[in-house]
Structure formats: C-alpha cells, structure tokens
C-alpha cells in the first residue's frame, strides 16, 4: 500500500547496511575500543579458518573458536569443538539470520576480544582469545552475571550458538549417553504413511544407554569414547561439586521394538 514503509532488507542482503540499531547496544563500546587500538592484537589462533566463511572474518572466526573452547566441555570423553567445526557451523547460522542481528554477534565477539574494553570493564588485559582456557571461562562467567545487560545478552547469544552447534553433533552423543534418535527407516519410506498401531521404542535397549555396551562409534564414524555405563561425573547440576554417588547403571531391558 502506498503509505507502507519500505523494508528493503526483507529482500535479503540489504539489511547489512542497517547497522544503526544495535540490539545489544554494543556499538559505542566497540567503536571506543577500536579507535583506541584495542582490536589490533591478532588472536593466537591455532585453528585454521575454513575457506568459505560467510559472515565471520578469519579473525572473528578465531575469536569464536576461543569462545567455543571455553563454552564446551573439554577433555575425554568430549570431542574438541574445533574438531566438530563448531565455529564454522555458527558462521552458517549467522549467515541465515537477520543481517543486523548477525552484526550484533560479530560486535559481541570484538567486544569480548578487545583488550582495552577488557581492561576497562573486566580489569583484565590481553585479548580474550590468547588467554588460557581457565581465564577465558572466568571472563565468560563474569559476563554471565555481569551487572551490564549488554554483557549478559552477549554471553547468552555466544553461549547458545556454541552449545547448540556442539551438542547437535552426533559425535557428542556417546559422551552424553544419548542413544541418538531411533531410526524408523523413514528416509526410504513413502512421504505419508497411514496411521497404524506400533510397538513403542524402548530407549533402554540402545547401545549407548546400556551398561557394558561397546562405546561404539556414532554413525558418522567419529570416535566417542564414553559409554553411559561408566560412572558419571560427580557434579550433576553444576557448582558447587556435589558429593553424590555415581548414578547406578541401568539394567538393559527388552530389545528394541522398533517396527515401523
């Protein structure tokens, strides 16, 4: 209609020019940090950026790799986030977002990395990505409970993007003790199937949740390493570490009854 506003960005792409409204309100801080030379330190990236980044630059990719390492668990049985390409997956997510929102994430990465902003707001010096893992985690924990809404929001966004990319990857399933989704052979089934009575899927019969089961590699061939029969970690729900005894292994019951 004649008096409707124009939304050029809905055509895709053009929205990248609309950087004025920064949802996180991070813009001023970023500019301040950059102008003072705070962004000049090149992070000590040990992970090669993939060739086809869409939103991230090699530099912001490196910062994100450092964030992902801090967000995701590390050490056996957990695969390293960089082995799963978490930062590249996040890049793909950003590419499908409202460009202005994706900009916000990039801004958040710069802000986190920025040594000057870090010094002012965090009493810490040195770019985020070159801090040791434990310090990176401490910085993030600080942002999580920061009195600055900007930091809480940035923490939430970065944590969420990294954690979802990591735990959606089947190569983490073994460590979680998740058997993976049951396969009903639907990929080769007709598009539609009339309703029928079915036996119920029994998750206890799956390899990962049955004690003594092989710590079989997930379908994509990655090495997992944990069977859920192993004693779970002592702190089930977070800090402080609890003294609860390990969860007793679960006895396997009937074999899978999946019969689509």
């Amino acid at each position: 209609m004649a008096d409707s506003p124009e939304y050029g960005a809905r055509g895709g792409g053009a929205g990248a020019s609309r950087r004025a409204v920064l949802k996180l309100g991070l813009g001023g801080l970023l500019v301040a940090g950059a102008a003072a030379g705070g962004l000049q330190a090149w992070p000590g990236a040990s992970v090669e950026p993939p060739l086809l980044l869409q939103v991230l630059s090699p530099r912001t990719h490196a910062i994100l790799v450092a964030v992902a390492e801090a967000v995701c668990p590390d050490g056996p049985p957990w695969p390293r986030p960089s082995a799963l390409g978490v930062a590249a997956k996040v890049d793909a997510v950003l590419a499908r977002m409202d460009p202005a929102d994706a900009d916000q994430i990039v801004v958040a990465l710069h802000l986190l990395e920025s040594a000057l902003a870090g010094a002012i707001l965090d009493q810490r010096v040195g770019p985020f990505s070159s801090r040791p893992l434990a310090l990176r985690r401490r910085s993030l924990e600080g942002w999580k409970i920061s009195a600055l809404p900007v930091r809480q929001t940035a923490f939430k966004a970065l944590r969420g993007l990294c954690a979802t990319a990591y735990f959606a990857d089947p190569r983490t399933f073994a460590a979680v003790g998740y058997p993976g989704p049951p396969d009903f052979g639907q990929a080769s089934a007709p598009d539609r199937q009339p309703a029928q009575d079915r036996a119920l899927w029994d998750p206890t019969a799956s390899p990962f949740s049955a004690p003594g089961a092989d710590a079989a590699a997930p379908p994509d061939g990655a090495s997992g390493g944990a069977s859920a029969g192993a004693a779970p970690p002592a702190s089930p729900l977070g800090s402080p570490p609890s003294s609860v005894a390990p969860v007793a292994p679960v006895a396997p019951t009937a074999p899978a009854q999946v019969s689509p």
Partner: protein
Amino acid sequence: MKGQITEGRALTADVAERCDVLVIGSGAGGAVLAAGLVEAGLDVVMLEAGPYQTRRSFQGDEGAAFVNLYQEQGARATADLSIAVLQGRSVGGSTTVNWTTCFRTPPRVLRHWAEVHGIEGLDEESLRPHFEAIEQRLGIATWPEERANENNRALLRGARALGWEASPLRRNVRGCANSGLCGVGCPVDGKQGMHVTFLPDAVEGGLRLYSDVEVDTLTMRDGRVSGAVARVRAPGSRATMGRVVQVQAKVVALCGGAINSPALLLRSGLNPNGRVGLRTFIHPVIGVAGVYDHLIAPYAGAPQSVGSHQFIDRGADKMGFFLEAAPMQPMLASTATAMIGPQLGDFLARLPNLSALLSLHVDGLLPGDEGGVVSLKPSGDPKLDYPVRPALIEAMAESHKVLAKVHLAAGAREVGTLHAQPVLLRAEADLPLLDQAPYGAFQHAIFTAHQMGGCTMGPKPENSVVRPDHRHHTVENLFVVDGSALPTALGVNPSQTVYGLAHRARAFVAAAVG
C-alpha cells in the same frame, strides 16, 4: 479438482494467483480454516514462509530440525535475549513440531473473556461441536498412564505423593511409536499435525499451497485488502530466491501465528488504532531438573503426557501456573542451562538420568498484565519485548519451589534449578535455599513455546484488533485466525483452542466471500 503443494524452489518465474480466499500461514489456524473453506467449495490459495517437509526428512537431527522447522532457526528470542521463543515455521506451522498436548479452552477462561473483554458467543456449549470435530479428525485421546515415559511419571508420582492434582494428558496422535521426537518432526506420522491431516484434506479438495513463500505485505485498495505480495525464500533461511508471488483475493485470512501476524500488519501499515502487537502473551516457562537413580531417558517417549493444574488459581492477585514435562534431546537440554565448560559437560552427561519438569505461567489474566509488545526491526522482521513483571517474578519463585518439591517427592537424588548459578537441593530441608535465589530475566532460563495475542479479539476497536468473529475492525475483508487473536493466555496448551476457533471461523470467512 485436486490442488497441490508447490515448493518455492520449483518456481522458475514470478507467480500471479487469483482466488476467493488467501490464507497466510499453514499452522493450526490456517490449516483448519483452509480445509473448511475448500470443503465449502471456495477457491483457496495458501502461502507458507517455511519449507515443506515430510517424515522422510524427519531424521531426529536437532540441528537440522531447528534450522528447517523453527522460526529464526530456533534462536528466536525476546529483544534482550532473556526469553527463548520456540515457534514453528514450516508446512504445518508449530503443529509440525509441537508436543501434542491437547486441551479444550477452559470454561473459566471463556468466562473471563466474556466478563473482562466483552467477548460474546464464545462459551463451552457453542464451542463444543467445533472441538468434537477437531478431536475426531486429530485422534485426540488420553495417553494412558501406563504408557507415560519416566520423565512424566516423575511428575505424576511426585505430585500425587504431595496430594496434588495430576493427570494424564490428551494427545493428537495415531499410532505413536513413543520416539520422543515430536519436537523435531514425527518420523512415523504418528503425530496428527496439520501437515498430515487438515492440509492434505484441503489439498485433496483443491487448495494450492506454496511453501518457502513468505508474505511481505498485504496490498490494499479502497480500504479493503486486495491480496498480498510474497517472496520466495531459500529453505531455512531469510535469503530470497528472487521470485515474487502476488495473490489477488476477495478475502484474506491472516494465520501467521502470534508475533508474525502482528508483524505483517505492521509491515503493511495496518495499525489504525495502535493496538497491533500489544497484549502478546507467552505462558513464560521455567524448568527445574531432577537427577534420578534410574534411567529417565527424557529424550524418549511421549514428551508431554502428564500435567498438573494444582496451582492454576492462586487467588485474585497472583499469577497461576501449571506443570508439565519437557522432552530433552541434547541440544535442547544444552540451551536450558547457562552453564559452560566442565559444568555443562557434567550436566549433559547426566541427561539419561535427568527429569525436566516445567512450570508454565498464565499471563494476561491479572488486571494490568499487558504481556509483551511486538514491533518491527529495521529489517521488517518482528521484534518482541517482554517485560518480566513483579507478578510473574513472584509466581516463578513459587513454581521453582513447587517443582523442587515434586522432584524430591518423586525420589530425585538431587534437584537443580536453571539459574545462572544453579541452586542444588537434596532434601526438603534445602528448600529455603530457593528463598535466597534471585528470580527474573537473566537470573534463570525462561522460555516460551506458546505465543498468543498481538491481534487480540474484542468488541471494541479501542482495545482490540479483530472482532470476536476474527474480522478486522476496519478492513472488512480481512480476518485474523490464529493464536494471535486470543485475548489472553489460556492456562492450558493452546493448540486445540486455535484449532477450535479456526473451525468456528470457517463460516465467518466463507460468508465474507459473498
């Protein structure tokens, strides 16, 4: 004549369509409405922003499902990111990914609508035939207690041990295999979502449905809506494919769901009374986790099959809440907490023994509870601001305690909240720890899977967007038939209310074609 489903990527040229009724959105409201209009012999075109997917692509892969089947790849949230917004975006809308709990609209809520919002003609009796028709088509029936998964059993056992009401829920399934995959697309078509029921019915009767086609704006002529302009999107993306679909229609039914429907009206400049986007309700949800000695497998089995309405009515000045369970595949579980690093790993490694119980808070019923506001981002996409008000904070503090008690009574060895710094409890004696914990935005996880309002119905244009028959107050041939028309939240899961109201709205929309 049989209709068809055309995927956006199959369009090699712009499309111009003409029809009696254009239905925008293929979810709970749009599908039920379209099937009725087609049955009445009308020529109907439907545009759906999301992709057309079937059981063949429902592989239980959370990552793929969120990209393809959810708004904003599953990352939709309030503007400050304090509340995560789960909402569907594919053929079938949210019904393709919802957790199948079905309730008729509670009579007390219908009475509230009549008394407080002046809405006439919506009562238990007049809605009954519509609900019966829906229940029959969708196979809605109680999921027997003995089939409940361990996660839901924890709720049942705990609540009953405390002497609280809890009962099995009704679900829209036929031949459910207990895969636990409702939220990522049912692999066996057991869930009777719109994509396997009313939409195929409507296509059989002549509906022309375009997927990956998102309406940008409505077009207007002489104070009436003349149709809409839409763009073809790349599946799972905002990227456009260059093609435009233009539809001319005698009547337009907006069924994009809460948040999206108001946004489309705003983009179209259709907000004569300034009410569009106001009173958006979300049943804000908090969760409390319990670790059990036995296998819970919260990722397996019907996700929601037990509920408790013990705390739905907490008196005139307090916000009520109801309790249900949540399915937990690893990715969704990871979003429920604010943990990082080893803590996060430990939490996820407990998943098999973890029960996740929810409290859903009923917004919009207390005087002065205006919920959230939908406006537009510079890109034209919707933005939701939702202030967490004192009444909600009070209710969330209470519901945390209630859920902790349920877990402990059900035999949990440890209970943990989803606070930024989790509160851990092992016994009733630890409950006072919850009194010291903070509640509100950013203090703990909050999310929503129930979006309502924003184009609220009511008799007066001063405080509503559409009339009680879903007709726009000023644009005579425009209807809003989806969750956005609800004047308040419901205190029960909303899908059946949307189905029922859409079933009722069929006659009004058909009559408007003339």
